[in-house]
């Protein structure tokens, strides 16, 4: 009896402590993903604006509805903007992590999110450095000159409206092709780049 009381006491304490943490900004992902398929990036300096809450492209770049904006020059020069700082009026931000998307259950402290500035983007365009989500294979790795998402990686996003989302880019190429085939390795038969397929979950 005494023992059970003690257990109850400990449980309550733990729950209370956990709840008090939840009171700040610790919320929990459930692992139910949505998928966006072949979202074509804008080119020639144009952007494709995307709203994760509705899982659709939007046109108004001046609003806080959009969360991500994609552009691509077709030569490996890609950019993904978040709605904040120099990029938009929103409350956005991002963190790129080298961990599996399923291992992320909680959102980190708000001050840990990066924002877009004139000098750098929250989601960096530089491949294969700390804090980038992709690798550019160049000429030394096969398939050559390909943009491949790092495995694992997770992009934590604060949306334009200030919600949180976690996102994993599955493919940069049209039709989410198998990148291990000779067809992909051959530059003549490789599908076009600048088409994003990604899984994500938004916490409302």
């Amino acid at each position, binding site marked *: 009896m005494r023992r059970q009381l003690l257990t109850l006491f400990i449980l309550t304490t733990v729950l209370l402590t956990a709840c008090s943490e939840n009171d700040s900004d610790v919320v929990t992902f459930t692992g139910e993903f949505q998928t966006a398929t072949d979202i074509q990036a804008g080119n020639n300096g144009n952007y494709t604006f995307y709203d994760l809450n509705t899982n659709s492209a939007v046109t108004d770049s001046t609003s806080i509805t959009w969360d991500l904006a994609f552009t691509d020059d077709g030569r*490996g020069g890609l950019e993904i903007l978040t709605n904040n700082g120099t990029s938009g009026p929103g409350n956005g931000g991002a963190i790129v992590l080298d961990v599996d998307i399923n291992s992320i259950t*909680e959102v980190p402290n708000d001050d*840990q999110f990066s924002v877009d500035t004139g000098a750098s983007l929250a989601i960096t365009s*530089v491949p*294969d450095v700390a804090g980038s989500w992709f690798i550019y*294979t*160049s000429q*030394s790795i096969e398939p050559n000159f390909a943009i*491949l998402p790092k495995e694992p990686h997770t992009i934590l996003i604060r949306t334009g409206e200030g919600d949180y989302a976690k996102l994993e880019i599955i493919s940069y190429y049209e039709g989410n092709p198998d990148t*291990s085939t000779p067809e992909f390795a051959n530059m003549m038969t490789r599908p076009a780049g600048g088409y994003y397929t990604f899984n994500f979950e938004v916490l409302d």
Partner: protein
Amino acid sequence: MNYIKHFLLGSIFFALSTTLFAQTGAIKGIVQTEDSEKISDANIYLNESKWAISDVNGSFEIGAIPEGTYTITIGKIGYRSFEKTIFIDSSEVLELEITLFPQIYQGNTAVVTATRSSQDIESVPISVDVISEEEILNSASNSLRDILLEQAGISLSPGEDNAIQIQGFESDYTLVLIDGQPLIGRIRGAFDVSRINTSNIQQVEVVKGPSSALWGSDALAGVINIITKKPTQDFSGTAFTEIGSRATYNAGSSISFNKNKLNGSAGFSVDGSEGFDLSDEEFGNNQNPYDNFTINTSIGYSFSELTSVSLNGRYFKNSFSGQTLASILGQNIAVDEDGWQEDLSFQLQLNTSPFSRFDTKAILYSTRYEDFSETIFTDLNEDDIINNNFQGLDKAEIQNNYIWLNNHISTFGFGATKEFVNAERYQGKRNQEGSFIFGQHQFLFGNKFNLTTGARLDNHSAYNSYLSPKISAKYDLSENLSFRASWGKGFKAPDLRTLYLNFDNAGSSYRVFGVENIGSELEEFESNNAIAQYFRNPSTLNSLDPEYSSAINVGLSYKFYSDQIIGKVNAFRNNARNLIEAIEVARLNDNSGIYGYVNINKARTQGIEAEQSFLLDESISISIGYQYLEAIELTSDTLTVIENGNVVRNEVESEVPLAKRPKHSGSVRLIYEEPFFGTELSIRGILKSKYFYNDDNVNKKADSDEYANAYSIWNINIAKQFDRGIRAQFGVNNLFNHTDQEFLRYQSGATFFTKITFEF
């Protein structure tokens, strides 16, 4: 001088001891073959404490021996050692007549690659694999490529044409020598071993593990030394012709003479095929049609027993033609691509022995290599694309050997090299100069223990100087069992690409510069305010260190049942550092990347090699080879993770398996001399386990869908030796027609051939 002093002292002591005390005995003897040919330079040991060497008449003498029972051991390269228990009476001279018998199965295998002087393969402290002339003859291989592939520890790099791997390292890290001199003309670091026709090969010596202490740059994973045939008979000649499917041909002829102090040889060979194409869907051939042409000549003159001079020349030409895709105005158009490669070399060598136990060798070596390819746009208003690359190496070296009275051998040498390369992609002509000095001492403790130490210092104009040491030892545990161990360092100088490359293609989104160019290029971009971001400090990009490795090899070799079972096992571990890789060092405002070369990577390979041959009876012999290999690249990564709600970056060192290296490789060779028709059947197999092919998703792991299948290739042939030196061979290479367009692009399907050889 020292020798004379020793001799005098010895004589005086001998005289004193025999006359004054008269309590010692002596032995006197002659060493000869069963045909009564005298054997000089045989080592005679008495209980491992007293020794002598037989002179040109085969005779030897040992004096001042206290009365007692002794074991006398007599050894000589190529002969079975002789051992006998004798009793020596005081004041008596025991006279002996000793007959040495040739070693039957390992007969006369002297190797030079292990120690830089010709020594019995069983006595050197480093394990040497020898591919004999007989093995080449049995396999009917046309090119060095085919014969190397039948060795268990050597793999064809699956992604490259005719490049080989040793102990898990790419072709870039293996030095290829012909009669001890380096062959030049590598393509993207890889040496094309199909450039060497087998017709002039006496034997191929393969030393695995770092060997830079004797051979300098590139001997990081090992050395392949091709020993050419030397004229030995008064007059001899050979002619052969071979034809096969896929329009394969191989023919040649050579003559040689050795008479009255003058010797010489001349020969040529031609080979080629119409190539092959495994897939109609993919554009282009797997191998284009090609023709090879080789000429070998040599002339030598012996002034005396002690002094000789020789001049060797070699010329090789390969020409090929094929098609490639060119992108013109957004359309892919098939265009012709033709080309050739050529190499030429001369080696002038003077050998002399100015005084007893000392010999010296002076070598002048000069070689040139050129390749050329042309993409031809017929009927199109486009300029043909021409690629031309011309390289040369001139080298002078002197090597001295001194055999001490106690049979220790000292080797000392030095030399200088001049190299140049002339190619558009290296912006014209570039010159380099180098010099080197090396020394080695072989200690012999009794006749069971051999300890060899050596080192070499290379100075070079294009990279920082490098010292490579090596120490190796051999101990005979018993007559049948020897233990070998070695530790050594190897290095590879930065190659032409990493020094001089200037890849600045307007159409592509990246540029690559060698270390000699990158500083000025970055300055120019900087002055135009074109650089958006540096990923590396630009001041660190102007020089490279040699890539280097250190390795341990430990092994046992054994022979039982009168040499009917012979084998060896070797374990190795090789740590490579400073490996050079192209990385993105800066990014321009237009988002294009600038790549430079840095010493960044580390790798580790380790494994076990084993070889075993059985002679079941006089007519069947079986050899089995096996290699277990682990090859890992060590990379340092920064991982961004969340800890306690904060983003943190952790430095982690990760081990990435190196791709395209089977864990298990094997080779099988069976030779059966059947008695009924007098034919010889030869079956050879190459077996590879499934292997990690490529990290397609670049997650630095070998995922289960990134493996290529296990495979085996079997070659078979039947030979019959007729009278008058005529030999006929018929066979099939790749008997079971195993091909794989995706993972084994350079393996052709089944190829039939028939070959006739005539020796006179």
